[in-house]
């Protein structure tokens, strides 16, 4: 059994509901269901937020076509061990809808599907190494 540091982490999630329906979502870290406050493990973590109950009629529009009510889930921030990983989560996280489309919505989930973000703990090492991933297109 490895004795490794655990990293206190917290997600902030904003939801948008309909008068008669609230969005259902599940958060998992490393395949274990967790709440918005969770413990990340030393090494690679896989954080998933899955939006479950959006129906075809859950986006309400007015006569002009403007959205007046919607069922959505928005990931607002992620703090791991007091280090803010929000920008990295929004730009590097992958949102795959149940239709199989990959959407770049920066943490805004408007269709059923799964948002996945992989990060490394300690987070300062993750931030340092992320630079190299950005350079990948130059190789």
């Amino acid at each position: 059994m490895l004795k490794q540091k655990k990293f206190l982490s917290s997600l902030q999630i904003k939801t948008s509901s309909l008068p008669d329906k609230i969005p259902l979502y599940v958060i998992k870290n490393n395949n274990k269901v967790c709440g918005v406050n969770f413990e990340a493990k030393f090494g690679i973590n896989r954080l998933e937020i899955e939006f479950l109950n959006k129906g075809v009629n859950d986006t309400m529009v007015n006569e002009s076509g403007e959205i007046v009510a919607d069922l959505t889930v928005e990931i607002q921030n992620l703090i791991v061990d007091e280090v803010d990983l929000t920008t990295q989560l929004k730009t590097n996280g992958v949102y795959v809808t149940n239709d199989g489309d990959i959407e770049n919505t920066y943490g805004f989930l408007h269709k059923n599907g799964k948002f996945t973000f992989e990060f490394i703990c300690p987070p300062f090492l993750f931030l340092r190494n992320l630079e190299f991933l950005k350079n990948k297109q130059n190789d």
Partner: protein
Amino acid sequence: MLDVLIVTAPFTYTFGPSLAPALLKSCAEEKGLTAKAWDLSAEFNYHYQTHQYYDKVVAWMTDPQVLLTALEFNWYSEIVGDYADRIIKIYNPTWLAVSVLSMSSQRFAEDLCYHVKKQSNIKILIGGSGLNIFQYQYQKKWYQLMLDSGLGDTVIIGEGEIELPNAIINNVNGVVTAPQLTNKQLDEIPFPNYNDYDFNFYSSTNNRTYWTKEKNNSELVFLITGSKGCVKSCNFCDVADIWAKYRVRSGQRVADEIMYLHRTYQINLFNFTDSLINGGLKPFLDMNVILADTLPNTIKYEGQFICRGEKDMPEKYFKAMALAGCHKVQIGIESGSESVRIRMGKGSSDADLDHSTRMLCKYNIRQDWNIITGYPSETEDDHQNTMSTIKHYLNTSNGLLDIIPRGVFLLIEGSPMMSPTYFGEFGLEQEIVNGHGSFIWTSEINPTNTFDRRVARFEELCDFLISFNESQYGYLRKMLAALHLKLNIYNEHVKTKKIFKLSTN
């Protein structure tokens, strides 16, 4: 089971076999622990210096502004992973002690500790003079970041000779602040034990050693510590932050160690780790006299040196140095301007400089002068003084003088210059760019001394040296290229500031 494995973290220059692991091994074994020493940094240089990615990865380790490609980073990561595997599978120690010599060792240390911690319960102890550097992004010192992140269990701030075995025996976690060893304790420390070292790492052609020009490639250079700390209090230097008080071993003990290493490992070349080999004049003279009497015309040594006047250091000292085998000294002249040297706290007058230079030449002892351009009070006249001093002595020293341009003046964490007193005295304003605050600063008392001016002065010095002797100083072009990268960052920063100022006005 092995109690402790002591390793060095790249990047460090392969100077010769690293002293810290060999010395700490002796200290641990003296307390009944089992210990092994591995100069991992030298092994890294030895195995990979000819690889296509090596130079770039080393540049990344030493300069935070350098970015790697994913290919380069993957190459580096695999190497770190392999070293971690060897530590876990071959050595499997209870403790891993990582020696972090400077900022250049931090990245490797971070990754090595990560890989080791990811796969094992080996406890990690970190020490060395590279621990104290402040990390602006995280508002804490580097060692605290390592502890808080779970990458290290124990940190020794200060000297580890006594505290490393204590920490292991008592299973100490957290920060250990080691009191400075006394002169008596320094004399009681055992001699280093290099038996675990593979000397092939040092004896082959290695372009990362400082002694290649003068030494045969099969010869090893061993490190010797005669003193710790410094008798001077130069305000740009962080030595006093590491060793507040100057302590010195007896001349007899240092001579004994040199003779022991010479006998045990058939070594003839030695390099002192001291900030100043002539900080304590009596022990320095004693050592030279003993070596000259006991081991005449056998060994050669080098070390850092301060220019002293004729009254403090009359000719007999230089004669004894030559007879003992002093081959070369490195002198922190820093500036050819006496007034700049006085403001630095260096205290060497023009007369001291002249006396030392002439005496060293007379006794055929080579000398390197370290030069820094752009000290906060340095004016254009001061800079021209430096240029004329260098030109004068280069032409009158029989080829025994080398100029080593160290770079532009940096604000070093832990140096007195970073204290409110000096910030106030010089009206310093420091700017943090990309998390680093050492090179972009201005001084209210000397506002024309901006980063681009400092670079221009440094360039003038390098250009002169290259034209003076292309084969000897051609290497400076690489330094200039690296400095120009920083200059680009500076120009971008200035431009952004101007745009920001315009937009807010």
